[in-house]
Structure formats: C-alpha cells, structure tokens
C-alpha cells in the first residue's frame, strides 16, 4: 500500500467534516465537525512528516492540537453562554444580523 492513501483518507475526513459544518445546526455538533477537520489536517501533517523524513510536520500537528484545545475551550464557553441567554444551541437562531 502506498502511504499516500493516508492523504486520501485525510481529504475524505476533511470533506466530511466540512459537510457536517454546513449541514448541522447544533453548535456543539458543528464544533465537533470542526474538530474532525482539524484532525484530518493533523493526519495529513503526520503523513507528510513521514514522507519528507523530518519531524516538522509532527511539530505542526502538535501545535494544531494545542490551538484546537484553546479553540475548544473558548468555543464551548461561548456556546454555554449563548445557551444561557437564548436557551438554544442552534446556529440558525443566532441570525440577528439578518436584515
């Protein structure tokens, strides 16, 4: 098997995640889909790291994880406060900017 398959898998997962972001209305699930996309990227980075024979790809994946953790913390906090004030976690409800 050619290790490029890892890249194909990453692309597939990324696309699925993106489609989830577009389809789901629950903010938490949307967030999970974003995480899925990030993980797909990480897989690609790790595969690239193996391809090029150095560890920089893994470093980037590591940083991605850290940033994703930060993002999840803040994002979930936002979801919780939005839910507190609006009693809804639907992204469609937060559409006050609509004319």
């Amino acid at each position, binding site marked *: 098997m050619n290790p490029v398959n890892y890249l194909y898998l990453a692309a597939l997962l990324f696309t699925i995640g993106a489609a989830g*972001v*577009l389809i789901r209305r629950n903010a938490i699930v949307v967030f999970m889909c974003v995480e899925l996309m990030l993980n797909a990227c990480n897989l690609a980075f790790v595969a690239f790291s193996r391809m090029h024979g150095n560890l920089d790809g893994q470093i980037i994946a590591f940083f991605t994880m850290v940033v994703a953790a930060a993002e999840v913390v803040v994002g979930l906090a936002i979801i919780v406060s939005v839910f507190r004030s609006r009693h809804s976690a639907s*992204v*469609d409800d937060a*559409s006050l*900017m*609509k*004319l």
Partner: protein
Amino acid sequence: MENLIALLIAAPLLGAGLLLCGGRRLDRVGHILGTLLAAASFVIGVVLFADMLGRSGDDRALHQHLFSWIPVESFQADIAFQLDQLSMTFVLLITGVGTLIHIYSIGYMEHDERRRRFFGYLNLFLAAMLLLVLADNYLLLYFGWEGVGLASYLLIGFWQHKPSAATAAKKAFLVNRVGDMGLSIAIMLMFTTFGTFAFGPVLESTGQASSGTITGIGLMLLLAACGKSAQVPLQSWLGDAMEGPTPVSALIHAATMVTAGVYLITRSGAIFNASPDAQLVVVIVGAVTLLFGAIVGCAKDDIKKALAGSTMSQIGYMILAAGLGPIGYVFAIMHLVTHGFFKAGLFLGAGSVMHGMNDEVDMRKYGGLRKYMPVTFVTFGLGYLAIIGFPGLSGFWSKDKIIEAAFAKGGTEGWILGAVTLLGAALTAYYMTRVMLMTFFGEKRWQPDAEGNEPKPHESPKSMTIPMIVLAFGSVFAGGLFSLNESFVKWLEPVTQFEHGHPPISAAAVTTLTVVVLLIGVGVAYLQYGRKPVPVTAPRGSLVTRAARRDLLQDDFNHVVLVRGGEHLTRSLVYVDHTLVDGVVNGTAASFGGLSGRLRKLQNGYARSYAVSMFGGTAVLIAATLLMRAV
C-alpha cells in the same frame, strides 16, 4: 480724422448710459441731453463726410482699430471700425433721421412719464445701429445687430403695460432671433472657410471657397436680412411692431433698423456676386415681399399698419435691387436713403395725426383732416408723392432705377421682375392714395368715444412739425440731388461696384410705364375712396381683402406650421422620451433592482449559508490552482 469714428458711436452710447442709469435727476433734461448727443453724432458724421469728400474716390475709406476684443490664436476679433462711402451713407441717414426723430419725440412723448427712458432707448438704438454699419468685421457687426434687436425690443414694448405691446415686442424679438441664427451660422461658416471674419479678407477671397459654401453663407446672410428687414418668411413681426410709439415706428421700422438687412446684403455683395443661386433667392424673396407688403398695405385700416405694409414692400424693392448684383446695389441704397426720408416723414405725419386724434389709428374714423392740420397735410402729402414715385420727387428717381435694373436682369427673369416691380409701383400708388384720401380728404368721420371725448384735431407743436418739414424737404429733393450727374452712383461705386444695366426696353419707356401704372393706381384708389364717402365700419370685402387684413394669414400660417408643428414635434419627442428613453432607463433600474432583490436573499443571515459560500470559494480556489498547474 479716423479717431472720430469711435466718437460717432460713443455719443449716443454715452447718452444711453446716462439716461438709463442716471435716475430721476435727469428726468427734466433727459430728452434734451439725448437729442443733443444724437445731434452731436450727426455733426461728427457731417464733419467726417466733409473730410471724406475732400479725398478721391478710392481713398475715401477710413479705418480705426480701437482694441483687440478676443485675441485667441487665429481667432482675432477686434473692435475696429471701417468708414467708407456705404457706411457714411448709413451714418448720415441714421444720425440725421435719428436726430429729427429725437426732436419729434420731445413733443410726441411730452406727456409720457417715462420719457427719459424712451430717449435712453432711442440713443441705445442709434449706438447699436451705428456700430452695425461701422464695424469692419462680421462679428462686431453681429454685436451691433444684436444691439439693434435689443433696442427694438425695448422700444416696441415701451408701453409694456399694454399686453399687445409686450406681445409684439416678444414677437419681434423671437422672429429676429431666427434671422440672427442665420447670421451667426454665416459667421461661423466664414470663419471655418476663410479663417477670418473681417470684411476685407472675406470679401476679397470669395473665389477661394467652393460654390456650395459661398451659397450657404449667402443664404444664411439672407436669412439674417429677412429677419431684420421683415422679408418673407420672417415678416410677421413688422405689423405688430406698430404697437410701439410712433417715433419708434418711424425710426426703427421705416428709416433705419429694417434697412440693416439691405446693408448686410450690399456689404456682402462680393459673396452674392460669387453665388448666382443665392442671388436668385434674394431676388425672389424681394419680389415676393414687395407684393406681399403692398397687398397687406392695401387692406389695412390702421394707418400705421398700412404704412408698415408699405415699408415691407419698399424694403422688398431694396432687397430685390440688391439681389440684382452690381446693377442694383447702388439703387438699393439710394432707394433706402430716399425711403428713409419719406417713410420717416410719413410715419411722423401719421404720429402727428394720431397726436391730434386722441391716438386713434383707424383711418375710417379720420377724414377731412387737411383743414385741421395743414402742416401735417402738406408734409405727409409730399411724402406720399415721393413714395408713389411722382415724377421729380425722391421716390421717383430711386424706384424708377430699380424697375429699370429689374428689367435689365435680362431674359424671362428680367421680364417677370420688371412686371412685379411695376405691379408693386401700381399697388404702392393705390394704397398710399387710399391712405391719403381716407385721412385728409372727404367728410369728417370721427365720433365721440365711449367716454364722450370727441377728438379735437389740431396741429402738432413745433418740435413735431419741424422734423416733418425737414424730412419733407428730403423727400422732395434728395432723389433729384442723388441723380444729378449720377452723383450717388459715383459716390458708392468704389464700394459696391456698379454696372450699367441694359434693359430690353428703353429707359424712357420704363419711365413712361412707371408713370402710367402710377396713374392707374391713383385713379383706382380715387374711384374707390375719393368719389364716394368712406364707410366708418369696414365692409366685409373680398376673400383677398379679408386675408390681407389678417396680414395674408402670415400668423395663421406660422401658427399652423410652426407652433402646431412644434407642439406635435415636442409631443412626439416627449412620447419617445417617456417610452423609449425612460423605458430604457427605468428598465435598467428595474432590472438592477430586481437583480439586487434576488441577490439580497443570498445574504440571509445564516452563518451556515456563509460557510457554504466560503467552502464553495475554497473549492473554486483549488480548481483554479489545479488548472494553473495543468496549464
């Protein structure tokens, strides 16, 4: 000596400025001041004339360059004057007759509280007219031309409280404007063709331009002349312009302003000589107007309008003569000068009659006035004899020469023109005799008016009669003086060229014919108006008479063709504007509105929709990248 030329214009211009801006302080001396400045201009003119006589024929022209008006590269417009024999003739006529009319107006306008203003306008008119005839280029001439139009507008509408006067002034101004367009187009054509509009270079280089261009310039100049000189088809303003005070009618519509067209054509003689087509049109216009004016004059009961018709007809003579080329120019100008004398005299006489008759203008309410106003009767009578061409008087000499020149045109044209001019002479004799008989002979026909004021005919004051007497002298002797030893021909020949015409019949025969038709005209008029009392209310008359009373339907024609036509044109343009132009504009706006209404829905406020756009955009970016790599 040439420095005096500017003073000719400056004197009346100063008068206009002082009288119009001076305010009430000048009310008491305004008329004297205006008259004195007009007289000063006349004196300067006489001095210049004497000086000019002291020099030989080809050396007589004077030039004065005052200053550069609009110097732009090749466009050099100068305030520069040219005083040659032709201009000199006009200067003397304008200032001389003008001064007399000023004097006359002192008496005529005595009771008008706006007399000072009136004299200001008269001075303005003189200044503009002098500028017109003294200019040495067409642009400055145009300036004077417009000034004359303005002054005539102000003077015709002087009694602006009368709606008819205000309307007449507007009409004169508008009709003149049509002609002015012709002049401005002619000047533009000249500039594009010759690169200049000074008289000298333009008139000397007419041979260089194509015949089409020259004909175009000639026709545009003719249009201008038609407007100013009240020639068919722009004649309709003249009759209405009689709404102005009578001195205005005498000054503007008899002696000076209407002659501007004749001056223009004569001055531009070289252009017309180079274009036989344009000349033919000039002749036709002159002939048609000649008959038109005469027919209108025959039917009018309003003494001033009858004289206005006569003016139109006589100017028609001049235009016709000017259209004949070098055989006619001199006689056109000669007739212009003699006409200036006797027509001014006739108008002043008419004014005098009106003055004594409580401003009544209907000749059917005159009658037998010769007993009440002898001076007016005699001067008017001499003017009458002059205009009908009674042998020996001014009109005879000039009109006879024009008829001769018309025959001398040669061929069928010559015969037709000769016949027309003879017919015109007969008609002139007829309508003038009619005026004379209705006004001064027969029984008195005036009645008390609605308020019970019966007119008390009386002779006018000295200030009015003296100018009439002077003009009567001119009417009697000017023509003979000019014809003595062909002095007028020799005087003008260096400017206008002159050729002796060779009529197919002898000059004596022409003269005899003229006298015969004159006698026929007088006789018919006498049979109609002298033998039996004139009815106070006008009989219904024949179809031609009724048409002539309505100025041969000129206004109806203008109304139907121009006003209605214009209305239809604008209506159709409005329709096109509303449907087509607005349709396109509104359609564009509506389609953009609809499009943005659709596009607006893309902006639905849902984060997920925006995410789709972002995602789609990313896909497109990847596609573009791949495509670029593939390429």
